[in-house]
């Protein structure tokens, strides 16, 4: 029941916000209420697990619970931010904006809880469609180009993923168990037709990898993140990519259970290293903060599949990294939103002296730089360190060294830009801007969480992470 509520409640909210002519403040309250209720329901899952719903199609298994917790947290923080944002900006089609956000929450909840691959696919497709109008909210040339690229590339990716799901069904032909239900696929994994399963893995990895923004399918990402309103970018970089990663993780789970590790792991490693390399090349010399963050997202998606591909403690590191990366991306995009609200642009040069003009956002920006590049004491240090350890344990020290070298390049590239933005001397005397509490509450909370995760991983979370790692064919450290 609670699982069903988690999916249906946001969709009802979306319908309400769209169909009923509410006052703007009422719509925003609806957004906050749904976000808070969703988060409360999620917390209740941690206290007492919910039984599977819809004939076992919906269940909160460890993998899904991790992604759901992340998306619900990010959504709540983004909803709080939206209150402050909508006081300053009136996006065209105000009700479309709120209802798009809520529909996105419903769709990601479906993705996280779905144990049926086709339903997971429908959820991921729905997230694409829910956010498309929000990317296009300015109705100008640049946002048009961004939404076109986003729609075409994501739709092709999603279509290829669907073909992959049909391949899974073919691999499962004649095997006992309900069709396309992950638990049943894993239980009878050794009976699946290996050739079709491999083809399915390839198509699902490319398809969902497109939505994650793995190189070389990442080309929509900088444009879309750059042009979308920052709070939408925050949801995309934090929640949407994590949901898509869950799709990759599910098929990896099945493939590993079927003993296809030697086939899938090198492919995952290849995509991971390529994404890191592409990110490193494009981060150097970026001139726009949001595009910089988009390439940083490509980097972290690379790390996620790298961890999966290494197996062992790498799987644990990957799942922990999903949480850390989601939180820090959301944090930084919300800070970018504050910067854009103050100056009207996310270009680095026009925003020099951010620390002076926006003291709170400026500090958050500098802290975010260290967090996102994996410096201690932030959580990303722990998860990246775990992934690197897995590389040594798996007998691939060269992967660890290559990753470290690319991470170092990325750190230098990002630091040069962000420090110039934060500390540089502004061109003219931009006055200090008062920062609304609504606009800084979200990023501050997210920053605290990333900091806590760097120092201490709570017991229940550690247990769920360990279970997820085992499901992915790995183990807890």
């Amino acid at each position, binding site marked *: 029941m609670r699982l069903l509520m988690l999916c249906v409640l946001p969709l009802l909210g979306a319908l309400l916000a769209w169909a009923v002519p509410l006052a703007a403040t009422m719509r925003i309250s609806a957004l906050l209420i749904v976000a808070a209720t969703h988060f409360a329901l999620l917390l209740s899952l941690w206290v007492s697990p919910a039984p599977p719903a819809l004939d076992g199609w919906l269940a909160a298994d460890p993998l899904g619970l991790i992604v759901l917790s992340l998306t619900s947290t990010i959504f709540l923080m983004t909803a709080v931010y939206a209150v402050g944002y909508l006081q300053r900006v009136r996006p065209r089609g105000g009700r479309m904006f709120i209802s798009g956000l809520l529909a996105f929450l419903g769709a990601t909840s479906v993705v996280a809880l779905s144990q049926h691959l086709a339903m997971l696919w429908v959820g991921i497709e729905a997230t694409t469609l829910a956010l498309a109008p929000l990317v296009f909210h300015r109705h100008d040339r640049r946002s048009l180009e961004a939404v076109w690229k986003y729609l075409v590339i994501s739709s092709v990716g999603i279509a290829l993923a669907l*073909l992959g799901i049909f391949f899974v069904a073919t691999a499962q032909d004649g095997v006992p168990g309900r069709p396309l239900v992950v638990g049943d696929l894993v239980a009878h994994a050794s009976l699946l037709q290996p050739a079709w399963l491999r083809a399915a893995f390839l198509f699902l990895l490319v398809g969902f990898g497109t939505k994650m923004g793995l190189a070389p399918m990442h080309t929509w990402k900088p444009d879309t993140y750059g042009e979308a309103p920052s709070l939408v970018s925050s949801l995309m970089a934090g929640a949407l990519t994590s949901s898509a990663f869950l799709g990759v993780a599910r098929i990896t789970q099945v493939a590993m259970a079927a003993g296809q590790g030697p086939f899938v792991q090198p492919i995952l490693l290849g995509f991971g290293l390529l994404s890191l390399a592409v990110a490193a090349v494009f981060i150097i010399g970026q001139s726009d903060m949001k595009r910089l963050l988009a390439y940083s997202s490509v980097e972290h998606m690379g790390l996620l599949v790298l961890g999966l591909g290494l197996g062992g403690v790498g799987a644990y590191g990957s799942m922990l990294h999903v949480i850390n990366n989601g939180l820090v991306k959301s944090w930084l995009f919300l800070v970018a939103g504050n910067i854009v609200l103050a100056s009207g642009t996310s270009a680095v040069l026009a925003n020099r002296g951010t620390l002076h003009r926006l003291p709170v956002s400026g500090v958050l920006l500098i802290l975010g730089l260290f967090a996102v590049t994996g410096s201690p004491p932030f959580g990303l240090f722990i998860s990246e360190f775990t992934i690197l350890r897995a590389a040594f344990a798996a007998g691939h020290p060269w992967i660890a060294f290559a990753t470290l070298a690319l991470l170092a390049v990325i750190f230098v590239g990002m630091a040069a830009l962000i420090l110039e933005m934060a500390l540089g001397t502004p061109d003219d005397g931009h006055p200090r801007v008062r920062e609304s509490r609504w606009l800084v509450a979200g990023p501050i909370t997210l920053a605290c969480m990333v900091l806590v995760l760097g120092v201490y991983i709570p017991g229940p979370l550690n247990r769920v992470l360990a279970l997820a790692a085992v499901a992915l064919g790995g183990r807890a450290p």
Partner: protein
Amino acid sequence: MHTVPQLVLLFVVLTNFGVLGTTRLSTCIRALALQGWLLGLLPLMLASHLSVHVMLLATGTLIVKGIALPWFLHWAIREARVRREIEPLIGYVASLLLGALALGLAFAIATRLPLPHLEESLLVPVSLVTVMIGLIVLTTRRKALTQVVGYLMLENGIFLFGLTQAESVPFLLEVGVLLDVFVGVFIMGIVVFHINREFDSLDSANLAELQD
């Protein structure tokens, strides 16, 4: 294996090449509509017995892929007053050759991936070649509308493959597929119009402002 479905599948391949080899958008859309009709017929021919489920699937496919989407695209080219594709990224002869290559590749792959419990020999290669030609059209044509046609061909190819699983995959999925095609194109359609209004042409090559 009956010969009629084989014949229908061959016609599907011909419509693929029809889209690849023409400059007129209206011909493209007609070929796509024909493909939609053929796809609507196939569930009826391949089913072991005619259930309500099969009839609904066939009717739904016919209405969406054979009538509604082509009608929508026709309406779009009338509104936007575009008639032909202008110089694609690779020429028509080259893209036909590429299509032929895709056909060979599809058959080569299909022999490596035998379908369990199904003697249908053409469904898998035809599905794969439709997916590949859809991707070729999508990536080499410059008009946004032709790209939408390419995307729909890609979806048609996936639908063809889905037919091999029509018995075991739940009904829900097929509805989801049709709906997704519809919604996807609907949104793309809106974007197509905005492209037309913003740039006075449907040339998606105009969309090149965002670059590194």
